């Protein structure tokens, strides 16, 4: 029997003690601990690495603290466009989606695409239609509203600037 392990991240950037209050610091650490231990319990009970990473990411998507799922940021139009992916190291199968709205847990849709479609990446309304046909949970726009993210967006809404969620503003760069 192999030794099990799981690691998670909730985003990288200009995250310093100066820009996190003690309460925020505590809240982030609690959310990370809950997610990583939920995933590790799956492994300890003999569950698959796929199930473990999916559950850990669902926990992070359900938290408003991180830029995914209900903590997603606002687009130029004031909407939420989400992307996700999952990949199995044993079979090299993968499922991914880009630019979906109203999907409560995008990582679950990635898993469904991996297991039930003949494709790797689905996008936009087609991915949403696939989610509907496999009974994935949708959520109204209000579910994705977060005051902090809205304020971040309000600062740049009327400009051409786009921002990483944890990094100070950048000049736009079009490759």
């Amino acid at each position, binding site marked *: 029997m*192999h030794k099990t392990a799981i690691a998670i991240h909730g985003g*990288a950037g200009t*995250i310093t003690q100066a820009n996190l209050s003690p309460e925020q610091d505590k809240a982030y650490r609690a959310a990370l601990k809950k997610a990583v231990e939920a995933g590790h319990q799956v492994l300890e009970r003999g569950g698959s690495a796929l199930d473990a990473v*999916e559950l850990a990411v669902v926990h992070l998507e359900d938290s408003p603290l*991180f*830029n995914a799922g209900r903590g997603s940021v*606002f687009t130029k139009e004031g909407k939420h466009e989400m992307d996700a992916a999952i990949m199995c190291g044993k079979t090299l199968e993968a499922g991914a989606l880009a630019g979906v709205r109203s999907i409560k847990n995008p990582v679950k849709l990635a898993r469904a695409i991996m297991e039930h479609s003949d494709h790797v990446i689905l996008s936009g309304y087609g991915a949403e239609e696939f989610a509907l046909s496999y009974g994935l949970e949708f959520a109204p726009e209000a579910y994705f509203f977060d005051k902090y993210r809205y304020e971040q967006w309000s600062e740049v809404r009327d400009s051409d600037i786009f921002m990483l*969620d944890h990094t100070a503003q950048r000049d736009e760069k079009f490759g």
Partner: protein
Amino acid sequence: TVGAVAVDQEGNVASATSTGGMTNKRYNRIGDTPIIGSGTYANNQTCAISCTGHGEFFIRAVVAYDVSCLMEYKGYTLQKACEEVVLKKLVKFGGEGGLIAVTPSAEVALVFNSEGMYRASKSTGEETLVAIYK
């Protein structure tokens, strides 16, 4: 962006990444998260990886697959491969961010070139690690 990598009792690895994109983004811009080999990759021969940061750079540098290739073709350890890509290659052309990675033998790497990364890990029989700053 959030992500997870894991290895189970059979020694299989897996990776998952999910993101809400960039604030104020337009034109249906897509980052590295859904691009297999850039933001998300898993291979039992090498490792599972999930990335976070400025997606355009992770796409152009094919970051996740690059780490796996350094292990597969040059015999790098997980930590060395991650540091080579994140702390050298990515920095060279201005890519900010980080990644998490795990091998079938349960080695874990949490490497980033930014000021912080929300991260946690847990291995059999070890305490949970939770960290934010460098």
